[in-house]
């Protein structure tokens, strides 16, 4: 592999089990994928699929049970705490609730200046100038520098959270349900902002969301998770127009306006099993309308349907 083709992020066999009363919660199970430089990978799935844990794992905000994450050739798991702290400037995260990640007692200017003072050692005046420049990047004027988070609307707060994430000029951003709490008209605004920043700065983005239409709007590729495992991963247009895994099809048809009204929509029975006791073999088989006896035996491997389009399903005979 040449240096240019080397991915920015390479995740190998990452697994996270959380200790619990009784059997451990298997939040993420043997997940491997790559994100290219400047690429947007959407991560979709329902509650309990492990998508948020996965976002924290790739930034090493939680320690994996097993598995590795390489960022631009640097093995994250090998870094000591102080090294990791310095390294974090390359990788940032934004969350669903920007209010929870902004200190209510800090003005926006102070919140934006803090990371540049820590990472770049800028003085007070230089840091304030940089804060104003960051606000401008997310479409807010310098007059907002001395205001507190409570004075802003939800969409504005998410812009501020994005500005703060950009403060250290990262090359990779994890956005965890970053627009889920916003009204649709503001969702579009924030998604377009993220997309234009991603294009301008060549940022790579891992965009985690339960909302398939938002993922479709922003992603180059998407990965579908169910009970901690990858069901399917493919270029975005291919995934939405030619889903190869029954779960992906069910998700697409269940999405509002995504399926035909009436009886011919695929409606899954039951609910997601507990991640403490996932089904044997294919974890989706208990809700899959196409499951066979064999599906209970082996964990299906991710195999290529087409170049770049992988699915974890042994049924190759289905026309979805």
């Amino acid at each position: 592999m040449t240096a240019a083709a080397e991915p920015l992020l390479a995740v190998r066999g990452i697994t996270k089990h959380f200790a619990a009363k009784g059997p451990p919660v298997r939040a993420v199970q043997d997940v491997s994928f790559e994100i290219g430089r400047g690429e947007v990978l959407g991560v979709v799935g329902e509650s309990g699929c492990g998508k948020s844990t996965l976002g924290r794992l790739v930034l090493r905000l939680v320690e994996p049970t097993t598995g590795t994450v390489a960022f631009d050739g640097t093995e994250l798991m090998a870094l000591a705490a102080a090294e990791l702290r310095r390294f974090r400037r390359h990788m940032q995260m934004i969350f669903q609730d920007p209010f929870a990640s902004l200190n209510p007692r800090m003005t926006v200017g102070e919140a934006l200046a803090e990371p540049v003072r820590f990472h770049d050692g800028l003085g007070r005046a230089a840091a304030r100038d940089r804060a104003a420049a960051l606000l401008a990047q997310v479409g807010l004027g310098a007059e907002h520098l001395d205001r507190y988070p409570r004075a802003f609307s939800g969409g504005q707060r998410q812009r501020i959270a994005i500005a703060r994430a950009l403060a250290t000029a990262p090359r990779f951003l994890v956005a965890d349900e970053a627009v889920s709490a916003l009204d649709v008209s503001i969702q579009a605004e924030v998604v377009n902002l993220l997309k234009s920043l991603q294009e301008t700065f060549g940022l790579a983005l891992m965009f985690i969301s339960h909302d398939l239409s938002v993922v479709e709007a922003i992603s180059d590729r998407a990965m579908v998770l169910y009970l901690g495992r990858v069901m399917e991963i493919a270029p975005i247009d291919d995934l939405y127009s030619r889903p190869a895994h029954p779960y992906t099809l069910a998700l697409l048809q269940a999405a509002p306006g995504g399926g035909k009204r009436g009886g011919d929509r695929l409606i899954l029975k039951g609910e997601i099993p507990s991640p403490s006791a996932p089904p044997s073999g294919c974890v989706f088989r208990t809700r899959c309308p196409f499951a066979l006896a064999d599906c209970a035996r082996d964990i299906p491997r991710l195999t290529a349907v087409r170049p770049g389009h992988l699915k974890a399903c042994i049924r190759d005979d289905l026309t979805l």
Partner: protein
Amino acid sequence: MPRVQDVPSIPPAGRADDGGALPPVLDVQDLKTFFPTDAGTVRAVNGVSFAVREGETLAIVGESGSGKSVTGLTIMRLLGRAGAQIAGGEIWLTRGDGNRVDLARLADADMERLRGSEIAMIFQDPMSSLNPVFPVGEQIAEPLRLHKGLSRRAARAAAVELLALVGLSDPARQVDAFPHQLSGGMRQRIMIAIALACEPRLLIADEPTTALDVTVQAQIIALLRALQARRRMAMIFVTHDLHLVGDVADRVAVMYASQVVEEGPVADVLATPAHPYTRALLACVPRQQRGEKRRRMTPIPGTMPSALAVPSGCRFHPRCAHAAARCIEAVPALEAIAPDRRARCVRWREIGP
């Protein structure tokens, strides 16, 4: 049966019924709900009119602050906490016996008897509506004992039947489960069972699937539609999701800044939205068919006006791509644009479908 006395039960003349047809189950006329605040009066619902017929679902769609939820709460007369008042308008409910009552002027005690028996409501968060210390069966049995006078034993048997109706597996066992033992989707099924226990004529569902995963949301929507078809119940489905409207409703009323800006059959409104706000809302999250080229999300410029400072004229004019001088002068009427459609836009003809 509950009895309602001392209320006007003859509707005023000149109501828009399509001659000979049954009167709508609910007929809301020029409804106004105001909240007094320190900063001034918030007109949360300001002149809203619509009707819902038997077996029909009307979706009320809008963003935060549009007044959609307050409209539902006003019909249920559940405004108490925030000091909100019905400041005008009429809410005519056609009762099971054919009499019509104006819920806006009904005495509290009479309203209490109607609530849970003839009209019922479900909410986004079933956990906050369910009592954590009682088994779900008792909570389903309660309205049956209260409104229908069933014995404890008969109410329990009915609760088991209702649990089966809303699709819970093993209802004879689940009837003794506590809310915390159930998943979010199952809790919402329980709420639906409680709401349907007394066979209401009208169900108001306020974002009932917003907190659920999409595959579970699809289940709940299918359940609501099946139950509604079976019982010929009228339903008001309050949601922020314009695309969900197409899956659940027959008609839709789009609300913006306390007013209905467009109303009509769902398929028509989604296919050829007449009001610029409806169009803008659809463009925020475009849906494409398989194989169609990907469209970019288009935000609506500007922000939702504060309820304390609504713009003059058309409330959407500061954000509207089609705004003209006359849009600022007077509040546009909700005018008929087709036999079964209305829009609150003076330029609907010029801007075309």
